[in-house]
């Protein structure tokens, strides 16, 4: 019945002149439960369901989304999408053409062992109660927050090219924050991670043990000396490096950005099309991949929102920039087909190029070996703030915590660390990457892009790494 409705919408779009159309029905159920200082801060369920139809008519795009899934509304919205596409065609230089893709009839199910919807709320609250108790294990902790999140999504994609794909997955996440105050100043430590998994992911995170450590570090930071301003060797923990990859690799390789489609909001990219295949992005230690295949990754799926199958793309190989994230619309620029990286946040959003799992491949060091090999430097971990210019060249990152490194050993804890550089200079200064035992795929359900802004759920794998001669410290 539903399939027939979708096919009818696609037929209607073609009757009205669309050269291509696709339609998605998306249902999302989210829940969030969090405790602050032992009291419930948030306890909420949200659900949404709707459809979005995308048409290409006269070479211009039209998109309409609605939460009312009825035959009449789908027909009405299809007609509206056609009108919008025709308006787009009024300001065009050439018609949009799409790279070919096979048609698929398939199903994808994400990994799920213990369904979080089956976990009693009492159990979650009791667990969070224990966590916040651990977070408040130090008297200086003024605010202790712990939360669990869950997202379940079911999606159907159908296109005029004959694809009909059903996908569903579940995400589970945890966040912790311990804010310490001595009455004059504040410091905090936090932990965040989300995976495409069930509640089993939460159970394996050792959250109580982590909470005690975070509380202790937050309190110690109050008395720690500030990270000095200067140029030094920087060793980055995998959590901080995951964000560095996100901001200075993941975004600049989005081909729609490169082509100016985000110019007025999220910005463009220094990785202009002439750089593909030749530009030295980083040192030979730097190998970056984009893929949608790793179980558990927030960027993992069966097919993207253009019906292109999940795949793996080498982005940077031994420091040389090789490839972008591409859509069916943009890949023909290089005579290629899409590498399957188009997603929309929900039914109400236009599908666009988004990161999947963008990761730095592991090297052959250990973190211990890197530290022992460093005469003077700073080890930093956990993002606190991040800022990049609109071509993703100049960046500034601040972290929650740092340790000085003196003669191959970790020294004093340092507060308010930060570093800044230019992207290619920074990645070319990378001379050591830890191996797979210290590599972790971090879930990041918070990537903002597009107008109206869409939040994508992406992941980044990284192991600790060293960067020589980086400017550190907050210079304000």
């Amino acid at each position, binding site marked *: 019945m539903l399939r027939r409705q979708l096919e009818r919408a696609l037929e209607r779009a073609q009757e009205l002149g669309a050269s291509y159309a696709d339609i998605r029905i998306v249902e999302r159920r989210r829940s969030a439960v969090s405790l602050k200082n032992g009291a419930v801060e948030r306890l909420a369920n949200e659900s949404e369901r709707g459809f979005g139809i995308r048409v290409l008519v006269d070479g211009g795009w039209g998109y309409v*989304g609605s939460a009312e899934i009825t035959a009449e509304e789908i027909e009405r919205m299809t007609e509206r999408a056609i009108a919008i596409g025709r308006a787009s065609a009024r300001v065009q230089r050439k018609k949009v053409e799409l790279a070919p893709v096979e048609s698929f009839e398939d199903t994808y199910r994400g990994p799920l062992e213990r369904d979080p919807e089956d976990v009693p709320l009492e159990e979650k609250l009791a667990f969070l109660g224990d966590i916040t108790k651990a977070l408040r294990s130090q008297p200086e902790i003024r605010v202790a927050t712990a939360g669990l999140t869950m997202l379940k999504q079911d999606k159907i994609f159908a296109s005029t090219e004959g694809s009909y794909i059903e996908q569903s997955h579940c995400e589970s996440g945890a966040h912790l924050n311990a804010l310490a105050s001595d009455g004059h100043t504040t410091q905090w430590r936090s932990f965040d991670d989300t995976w495409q998994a069930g509640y089993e992911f939460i159970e394996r995170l050792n959250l109580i043990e982590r909470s005690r450590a975070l509380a202790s570090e937050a309190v110690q930071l109050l008395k720690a000396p500030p990270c000095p301003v200067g140029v030094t060797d920087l060793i980055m923990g995998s959590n901080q490096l995951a964000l560095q990859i996100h901001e200075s690799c993941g975004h600049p390789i989005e081909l729609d950005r490169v082509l100016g489609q985000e110019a007025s909001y999220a910005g463009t990219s220094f990785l202009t099309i002439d750089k593909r295949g030749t530009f030295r992005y980083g040192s030979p230690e730097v190998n970056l991949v984009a893929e949608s295949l790793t179980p558990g990754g927030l960027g993992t799926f069966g097919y993207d929102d253009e019906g292109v199958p999940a795949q793996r793309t080498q982005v940077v190989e031994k420091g040389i920039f090789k490839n972008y994230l591409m859509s069916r619309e943009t890949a023909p620029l290089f005579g290629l087909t899409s590498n399957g990286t188009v997603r929309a946040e929900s039914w109400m959003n236009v599908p666009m190029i988004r990161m999947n799992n963008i990761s730095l491949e592991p090297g052959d060091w250990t973190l211990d070996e890197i530290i022992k090999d460093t005469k003077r430097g700073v080890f930093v971990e956990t993002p606190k703030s991040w800022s*990049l210019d609109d071509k993703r060249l100049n960046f500034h990152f601040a972290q929650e915590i740092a340790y000085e490194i003196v003669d191959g050993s970790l020294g004093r804890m340092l507060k308010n660390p930060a570093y800044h550089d230019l992207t290619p200079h920074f990645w070319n200064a990378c001379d050591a990457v830890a191996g797979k035992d210290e590599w972790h795929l971090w879930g990041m359900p918070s990537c903002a892009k597009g107008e109206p802004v869409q*939040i994508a759920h992406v992941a980044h794998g990284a192991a600790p790494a060293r960067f020589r001669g980086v400017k550190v410290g907050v210079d304000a």
Partner: protein
Amino acid sequence: MIGRDRALAIAQDALTIARQRGADQAEAVVSGSDFSLTRFAESVIHQNLSRREAQLAVRVVFGKRVGSAATGALTTDSIRRTVEEAVQMARFQADNPDFVSLPGPQAIPEVETFVEATASYTPEERARDVAMIVERAAREGFTAFGSHTTRVDELAVANSLGIAAYNAATSGYLRTVIAGPDGTGYADYYDRDVRNISAGAVADEAVERAARAQHPTRLEPGAYETIFLPYAVADIIRFPGYIAWNAQAVQEGRSFMVGKFGQQVVGANISIWDDGLDLRGLAMPFDVEGVPKRRVDIIKNGVAMGVVYDSYSAQREGKTSTGHAYANRWGRGAAPANMVMAGGDTSVQEMIASTERGLLVTRFHYTHCPDPLRVVMTGTTRDGTFLIENGKISRPVFNLRIEASVLDLFSNVEALSRETKLSRDWWDTFVPVVPAIKVRNVHFSSGTEF
């Protein structure tokens, strides 16, 4: 659109079900959005969308336990299921000793926020406006990028204590980046009435700025006397706005305002308040709890005066809400959504003329706050950064990274423009009404290569 009668009827249905389920108090918020946006890049339209969404959010109260749930479907079944979920959520809670009550009803002021011309603006009309910008850019050999949004947002709030408030608000927002061969310029305009948005004027401003911005050269980072246009000031003010000027931040010791009320915290020429009824801004008569918006003086002549409250944070201090509750995908709380910064007695041209050597900054990109307690902001300039020498703009320069405490910036303001502008910050946190400002000794820590 959902419409007043249907929105309030849905809310009342939810309250009835909550009462039947034994809730002591309940609140139902029905929101709807008819949103249309046309995006353009390289002088062609590349995205064009229209969407209609609605949500019912329910809070139920049992003693000092509060449960909430939300749905995107407004059917009878969905309303009942959502209230049931909220009831279940409340049952599992421990008592929250700080929770006192949902707010009671107060008179809601009349504010005109709906303009039919904006609500009925068509894709063809947006395309016509975009074409005007594209053509204006082409006359200079430039290309145009940007977006054109028209929307209707509805909000209905009802609670079991008698609140029943509804508002429909329209807005239009046209923004463009104009790119030449080596430099970009920016302009935008925001208004509840799309007829007040002149695509020609926006294009003229951005094209003129882009023409001046061609072929920038490197400028050493350092301290500069700097003129910030309102686009940039919106990004400066957003940091204290969301970090420091809400009651929760003060109560948790995260705000620089802690212990400073009544004291001089920035220059005496700085006055900032929040006023949801000021028609220069995106006026809104009440908040998401149905509490009327009150004007709140935040900084008056440089002195820390107050912060904004929702009902929960107000009751923790035995106060009443100022009508600043918000709820979005990031959570709930209070926020100064309608900030106004007082202007001064000069103009941007006069500021430039009185500057021996300094910078003119159009706007910022991707700003963030590495040190919230000191309200340190960092971010890079974009779309028109110029060196001023001997009272004139002498040349465009590469973009620079600012690293400065907003408190220091607001302590060193030499001049403010008479004219103020409704300006959205980069992240769309707030849309305040702000002047241009000229600031002494602004620290730029590094530069870009464009």
